């Protein structure tokens, strides 16, 4: 599969994403500078973490107007899968591709630690290969990861099964202590109604090899690869 990994000024998880897709999973991945206007025939897009444009004004607010994001808008509108990680999640919310917004952590502190994630649905291109009931242990590293949306929007997310991940403790319970940033209902990741665009604050690309202390995040990328392969098979049939 061909992956496009976007690169904005001050992206800093772009190389990690490329490493996982290429070296760990054996697929093709190319970096796309923010001034590009085409996605070069990519099968899927990763919007990586970092501090695009210095987080000026609001996180992701400037990046969403970059030329490459206009191509991503079209790609998403045609059903192409797009995954935003950390700053990528913030950019996709700002772009209106995902509901809600990410605001300053309730503690006002930058949180950098491993958390447990509970997968709320396997019905998405990004979660279908995550073993049923398995908690994912992956790192977070953000100052503005508190997910906020109006109660109406949260209601719709639940009705449509759009909440992908929640922060939980080691027993899988979504407690206040296990919520590292004050996100509404411990929400760590969501997808759009069509299910082809998703974002999460934790970093699965930093937890895709045992050497890094956890390989749990790998299942997110394996899900995406599996979904793309199934789509190719369905098209051929």
């Amino acid at each position, binding site marked *: 599969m061909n992956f496009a990994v976007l690169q904005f000024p001050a992206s800093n998880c772009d190389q990690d994403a490329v490493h996982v897709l290429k070296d760990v999973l054996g697929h093709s991945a190319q970096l796309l500078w923010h001034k590009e206007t085409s996605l070069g025939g990519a099968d899927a897009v990763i919007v990586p973490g970092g501090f695009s444009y210095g987080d000026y*004004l609001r996180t992701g*607010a400037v990046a969403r*107007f970059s030329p490459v994001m206009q191509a991503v808008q079209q790609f998403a509108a045609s059903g192409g899968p797009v995954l935003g990680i950390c700053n990528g999640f913030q950019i996709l919310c700002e772009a209106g591709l995902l509901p809600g917004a990410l605001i300053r952590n*309730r503690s006002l502190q930058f949180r950098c630690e491993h958390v447990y994630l509970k997968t709320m649905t396997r019905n998405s291109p990004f979660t279908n290969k995550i073993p049923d009931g398995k908690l994912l242990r992956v790192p977070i590293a953000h100052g503005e990861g508190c997910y*906020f949306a109006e109660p109406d929007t949260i209601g719709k997310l639940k009705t449509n099964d759009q909440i992908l991940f929640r922060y939980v403790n080691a027993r899988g319970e979504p407690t206040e202590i296990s919520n590292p940033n*004050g996100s509404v209902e411990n929400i760590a990741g969501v997808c759009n109604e069509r299910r082809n665009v998703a974002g999460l604050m934790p970093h699965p690309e930093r937890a895709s090899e045992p050497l890094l202390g956890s390989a749990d995040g790998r299942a997110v990328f394996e899900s995406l690869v599996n979904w793309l392969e199934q789509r190719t098979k369905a098209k051929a049939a």
Partner: protein
Amino acid sequence: MKAKIIITPKKAVLDPQGKTVQNALEHMGYSGIHAVHVGKYLEVELSGADRETARKQMDEACHKFLSNPVIEDYKLEVE
């Protein structure tokens, strides 16, 4: 011309900065403080003669880019 824009967090949105400043003020002995909201202030210098056109333009920019309607309110003045 100058556009003056004040952006504040919506009432329903958690404002930990405002809460922290409020706590500090109370701690310092200032009484009767019900709430503090921390926002931002922007000044945009504009050329052109028509104030109404400038106001419309900046209003659109506030809605599309300078504020995020999901979490923020804004007040705009052009002078």
